[in-house]
C-alpha cells in the first residue's frame, strides 16, 4: 500500500461501479444560475458603487465652496486697501491742491485713479480716526508713529519687494505721467503723515473733514504725525516689523519731505516752502536740524 493508501485494483473497480451522474434538469438549472450570476455580477458591482466617485467629487466641491465662502474678505482686501487707501498724503494732496492750483505750479496734483477713490472710504480717514482717538492719544514721537507704519508696510509686502510707496509711485507715474513724487502720495499705504504741516493750506479752502489740517490746526504740532498712526492703529492688524524696515521708511519720508520743500522753493513758492519747513521742524523737534540738509537748515521760517 502506498503513502496515499490507494489500491489500483480497487480504484478501477470503484470507477466502474460508481458512475452515477446528476439529473440533466439539475445540470441545466445550475448552469443557468451560474450564467445569470456571471452576467449580473459585474453589473451589480458597478451599480452598487457607481456613486462613490461622484460623492467624493461632490464632497471636495462642497469643501471648496465652503472654504471660499468662509474666507474673510480681509484676507485679500488689506493688500488692495493698503495699496489704494487714502493715505495722509492723499488728504494732504487734497488740502494742498488749491494752493497748487492757485500757483499754477507744474506739480499740480493729478486726480487719483478711480480704483483708489473707490477703495478710499474703506480706510478710515485719518482725521476722523484722529477725532475718535485723539482724546485718548498723546502726542506720539514721530519716529514711533513711523515705526508702526513701517510695521504695517512690512506686513503687507515681501521684504525684497518694492515699497508700497514706490509701487504707488509707479502706478501714479503710469496714470499721471510723471507727477512729482511728493504728489504721488495718494496711492501710498496708510502710513504716518510725512507732511503734517500741509494742513494749514487745507484750511484755506478745503473741506475740513477731509484733511488732517482741521485736526492739525487745533492739535499740537508734535501730535500731527500721531494722528494717522492712531487711525492706522484703529484699523490695523498690527504685526511686528523689523527695525531696519522702520528706519528705512522713516528716512525715506524725511527725504521726501525735504524734497517737497525744495520743490516748493524751486517753484518760487517760498511761503509754502517756509510752511513746510516749519511743519518739519515742528514734527521732528530737536532732530529737525540734524535731519535737514545744510541749505535748508540755515533757512528759518
Amino acid at each position: 500500500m502506498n503513502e496515499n493508501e490507494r489500491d489500483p485494483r480497487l480504484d478501477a473497480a470503484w470507477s466502474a461501479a460508481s458512475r452515477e451522474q446528476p439529473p440533466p434538469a439539475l445540470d441545466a438549472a445550475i448552469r443557468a444560475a451560474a450564467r445569470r450570476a456571471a452576467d449580473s455580477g459585474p453589473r451589480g458591482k458597478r451599480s452598487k458603487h457607481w456613486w462613490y466617485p461622484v460623492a467624493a467629487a461632490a464632497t471636495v466641491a462642497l469643501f471648496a465652496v465652503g472654504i471660499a465662502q468662509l474666507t474673510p474678505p480681509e484676507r485679500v482686501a488689506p493688500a488692495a486697501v493698503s495699496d489704494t487707501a487714502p493715505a495722509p498724503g492723499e488728504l494732504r494732496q487734497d488740502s494742498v491742491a488749491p494752493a497748487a492750483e492757485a500757483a499754477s505750479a507744474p506739480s499740480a496734483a493729478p486726480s487719483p485713479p478711480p480704483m483708489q477713490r473707490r477703495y478710499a472710504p474703506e480706510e478710515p480717514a485719518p482725521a476722523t480716526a484722529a477725532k475718535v482717538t485723539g482724546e485718548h492719544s498723546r502726542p506720539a514721537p514721530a519716529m514711533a508713529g513711523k515705526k508702526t507704519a513701517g510695521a504695517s508696510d512690512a506686513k503687507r509686502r515681501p521684504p525684497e519687494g518694492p515699497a508700497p510707496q514706490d509701487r504707488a509711485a509707479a502706478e501714479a507715474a503710469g496714470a499721471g505721467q510723471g507727477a512729482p513724487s511728493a504728489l504721488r502720495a495718494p496711492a501710498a499705504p496708510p502710513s504716518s503723515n510725512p507732511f503734517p504741516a500741509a494742513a494749514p493750506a487745507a484750511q484755506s479752502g478745503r473741506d475740513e473733514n477731509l484733511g488732517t489740517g482741521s485736526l492739525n490746526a487745533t492739535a499740537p504740532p508734535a501730535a500731527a504725525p500721531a494722528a494717522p498712526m492712531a487711525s492706522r492703529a484703529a484699523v490695523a492688524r498690527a504685526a511686528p516689523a523689523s527695525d531696519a524696515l522702520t528706519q528705512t521708511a522713516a528716512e525715506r519720508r524725511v527725504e521726501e519731505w525735504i524734497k517737497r520743500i525744495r520743490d516748493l522753493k524751486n517753484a518760487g513758492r517760498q511761503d509754502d516752502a517756509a510752511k513746510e519747513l516749519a511743519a518739519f521742524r515742528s514734527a521732528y523737534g530737536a532732530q529737525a536740524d540734524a535731519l535737514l540738509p545744510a541749505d535748508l537748515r540755515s533757512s528759518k521760517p
Partner: protein
Amino acid sequence: MPAPAAASDEDLMLAYVAGDAAAFDVLYDRHRGGIYRYLLRQARHAGIADELFQDVWMNLIRARASYAPTAKFTTWLYRLAHNRLIDHYRASGHLKLVSANDEAHADAVARLPSPREDEPHARAERRELGERLRAAVAALPPAQREAFLLQQEGGLSLAEIAELTGAGAETVKSRLRYALAKLRETLGDLDGQWREGLG
C-alpha cells in the same frame, strides 16, 4: 470567449469570478460527477443527493466573490459539499460522521452477501460486482467512507482530506487503511473478476 479546457480549476474559477460563464461550464463538467456521487454515497438517497448537490453549487456561485486560489479548487469545492452534508446531518439528526468506530461496523461488512453464497453465473457476478462494492462502501463507518469517497471521487490527497475534515493526517491514513482492508476482504473472492471485467 470559450474557456480553455486545459486550464486549471483555479484559473477557471477566477475566470468565472471575473464574469466568464463558460469557465464555469468547464469547471462544472469536471466535477459534477464526483460531487454528486460523493453526496449520493453519503446521503444514500438520490432525492436528498440532488438537493444537496444543487445547494453545493449554488453556494459556490454565491461565494465566488470570496474565492481566493490559496488552496486547490477541489479542496474548496469538496469543503462546501462536506459542510453541506454536515448541515444535512444536523438537520436530520444523523450526525455520526465523527464517531468513526471501525470495530462497530465490522459486522455490517461481514453481513454483505458473499459472492460464493450467490454463485451466479459470470455475467451476473460482474454486474453484481458494482452493487456489492457500493454496498461495501455504504457499510463502511462514516469517517472511513468519507475519507474513501474524498479520495476516490475528489482525488484528494491525504493532507487535503485531513485539512478538509479537520482530522490529522495519520488519522485519515488510518481510516483509509481500514476502509481498503474491509473492501478487499469483501471483494477478495472476486479477484479474478477484477482483472477480467473491471480491471
